[in-house]
């Protein structure tokens, strides 16, 4: 068995709805991953700093306020600026279908909307993880 997958679960922006983030964090942990949860109101800069410091394989963000188009791509951009290419970036929350292609193109490779089973997220991470 390889070393466990490390995931940063992050809440960018100002919204305080962290039910989803916490459920995902726990489900990933129960699936054997190491999970760090940032807590609320993290700026993209703080999230990237935490991702670097914790040397994570995955950054999984949750937004329910509608600020995803602004904040998700910014995190990807800042990661790239740090020279980080091999971290899988995921996003979840209330995200309209129309916004998904743009986010994927910006480097948020998996977008999970309400009703997604946690198993699906776990499977996605295992299949798409980049670091070996």
């Amino acid at each position, binding site marked *: 068995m390889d070393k466990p997958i490390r995931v940063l679960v992050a809440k960018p922006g100002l919204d305080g709805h962290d039910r989803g983030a916490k459920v995902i964090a726990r489900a990933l942990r129960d699936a054997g991953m190491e999970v760090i949860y940032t807590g609320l109101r993290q*700026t993209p800069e703080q999230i990237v700093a935490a991702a670097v410091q914790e040397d994570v394989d995955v950054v999984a963000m949750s937004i329910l306020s509608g600020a995803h188009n602004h904040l998700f791509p910014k995190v990807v951009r800042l990661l790239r600026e740090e020279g980080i290419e091999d971290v899988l970036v995921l996003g979840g929350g*209330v995200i309209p279908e129309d916004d998904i292609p743009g986010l994927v193109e910006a480097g948020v490779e998996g977008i999970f909307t309400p009703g997604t089973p946690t198993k699906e997220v776990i499977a996605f991470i295992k299949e798409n993880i980049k670091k070996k």
Partner: protein
Amino acid sequence: MYDEKKLEQIKSSFVDWDENKVGKQLSKNPERKETFTTGSDKKVERLYTPIDTAEMDYERDLGYPGEYPYTRGVQPTMYRGRFWTMRQYAGFATAEESNKRYKYLLEQGQTGLSVAFDLPTQIGYDSDHGLSEGEVGKVGVAIDSLRDMEILFDGIPLDKVSTSMTINAPASVLLAMYIAVAEKQGVSPDQLRGTIQNDILKEYIARGTYIFPVEESMRLITNIFEYCSKEVPKWNTISISGYHIREAGSTAAQEVAFTLADGIAYVDAAIKAGLDVDDFAPRLSFFFNAHNDLLEEVSKYRAARRLWARIMKERFGAKKEKSLQLKFHTQTAGSTLTAQQPDNNIVRVAIQTLAAVLGGTQSLHTNSRDEALALPTEDSVRIALRTQQIVAHESGVTETVDPLAGSYYIESLTNDIEKEAMDYIEKIDNLGGAPKAIEKGFIQKEIQNSAYKYQMQVEEQERIVVGVNKFRIEEKDKKELLKVDPHVELLQKKKIEKLKSTRDNEKVEEALEVLKAKAETDENLMPFIIDAVKEYATLGEVCGVLREVFGEYEQSVIL
């Protein structure tokens, strides 16, 4: 509620029925499941009978509507007198846009306003603050100064409508602006009717829009209680909210328990600040969720009403009738809406509406079908409002008071929820009260456990969510969704720029300095906040001054 002999008879006939009739049936046709549970995972028996309510005393435990312990409702005639206030929570983009939506809703027969603010406003940042980037006007209207508030209520007579504002950490500032706008309309504070949410404890627990540390937040809240009891006597000074606790994943009984525990903390704080319980308690109001389990929800409201009346009377020695009455607003459950087959949500909302009405709510917001996807369109909002109107005018449930009372199941479940909530409150008392229990993460952890359990039950198909884990279809139709104009942020920034160049900056400075000095004393801050907003100090400036003196709350993250 029955004489001993009759009860013995029923007990024996029940055993007969259970062994013979049920036994025979089960051997032929087993039931669908091994155990049956409510939406909140409470065990449900096959049948409820007089045996389950035998310990009850009608007058002690139920009584009459408008009489202690108010189990059957806070008013003697309930909806025969007048319907609940139909109040749709709305607000987005700019004050101009939201003003239009309010006028539309009032034309459609809505009877009260409910203002949604964007997140920067809720956290005390102006639209031009760095952390506001991407959030301006998204989940509500952006209010930076009294100027925006004047536009928001333009043409809406504040002596005629009642306004509910979902604002917590900076509630004092938004209330100050509301008072100032009214004054400009020639309406005095004692004519104003409405509610500010002002419930910081549930922000720490579940909703997240806190600013200041606990003690300073409690001070601001008691300042508002005191100020309003004298100057704005018809204003509901707090809406103690279980809604968000439930949305975060709590059970129905936890919703009652944690909400009332928060309520106890506010009453304690106000008494400690020297207020008389009967001076402020009549203006306390509550806010609950309405989920899909119709009968459990109805029982929940009844249990909450009875328990609060008992707490106020026995624990706090309140004497005025109005101090003992739990009045509440309800919103249907956002967390039960599905992004899949969104039209199904109309049906869910209808069931939840029935729950709230059968539970005796004083006002109601019904969610729109598309809210798991985006902010609702005008069409969706109209259907949501019509749902209330259909329940009010066509369903018949409004024609008598508390129609489900006396149902063995309802009464038994009401007792059960009250008991579970009481046990939780005792635990929280032992931890030192709600603020301490929050600090220790106890309340958050209990909610998270329930949320996780629920999610796993859905994933294991132990719970069916129609359209999500059963009865799914390939969805092709594009839905019309509301889009907030991305230029709102820019517009707001320009407005602030203009404001700062046209107001009397010296007076603003002066007012903010006075406020800062007073924040360091024990004086009531409301009058000084009102002075500052009248000079067009921005929300961010006022909160900034208070941040300097009070510091900020640090979240305790527990997984």
